């Protein structure tokens, strides 16, 4: 079984695959623990980055401390 390439995994998560490719990737992921694990590693990056999204953080700039 040929594993999904890094590019395919990235395109899959970016929803940038054409529908037939996306379906094929989905089928492979369902059957392949190795590729699912790689996908999970990449997905973690996506969800962690969200912690720094503008909606997550206080957008009030506030006064900055005067330290010269």
């Amino acid at each position, binding site marked *: 079984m040929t594993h999904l390439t*890094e*590019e395919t995994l*990235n395109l899959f998560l*970016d929803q*940038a695959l054409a529908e037939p490719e996306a379906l094929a990737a989905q089928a492979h992921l369902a059957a392949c623990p190795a590729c699912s694990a790689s996908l999970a*590693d*990449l997905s*973690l*990056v*996506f969800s*962690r*980055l*969200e*912690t*720094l*999204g*503008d909606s*997550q*953080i*206080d*957008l*009030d*700039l506030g006064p*900055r401390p005067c330290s010269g």
Partner: protein
Amino acid sequence: MDEATERSLVTRAQRGDASAFGELIGLTQAAVYHVCLRMMGERREAEDMAQETFVRVYERLHTFDPQRPFLPWVRRVAANYCLNQLARRAPVSTSFDDALDWPENRPGRWHDRQAEQARRVRAALLRLAPRQRAVVELRHFQELSYEEIAQALNLPISDVKSDLFRARRLLAEMLKDDPSN
């Protein structure tokens, strides 16, 4: 703010109305600041970059189509400006500590675990090469497509993809040993 109000502010600013431009700054400065903070890592520097961003926005305002949304354009200008500044510098070895004035380091605002995660992500981002960081900023925070990123940074799409995919692989490695997983 509704689109019509924004359009009218942009149009007035384009005709030289300083108070309209001031209002546009007020509406977008927090978002621009956060772009700059993700790119630069240091609050004071991020504030300077945000100010410089608005200088550039002002200079290019006549090229902006008021039918388009203003904030995404300004955020793109900010990312681009930060990248250009970073690209001119010698790479610095960065170390980060809790003393940095990041939003997640201010006491009492976040749950400890959430703050710790945010710190780790921010530090990991700052370890990426500037162009990788810019591509991550534009894809993950500004939600541009590969094509839009290529256009914004004046790069071929193949470079956008390789920078983005490599950046994600590096981030995955840096965040993998996160004890809070």
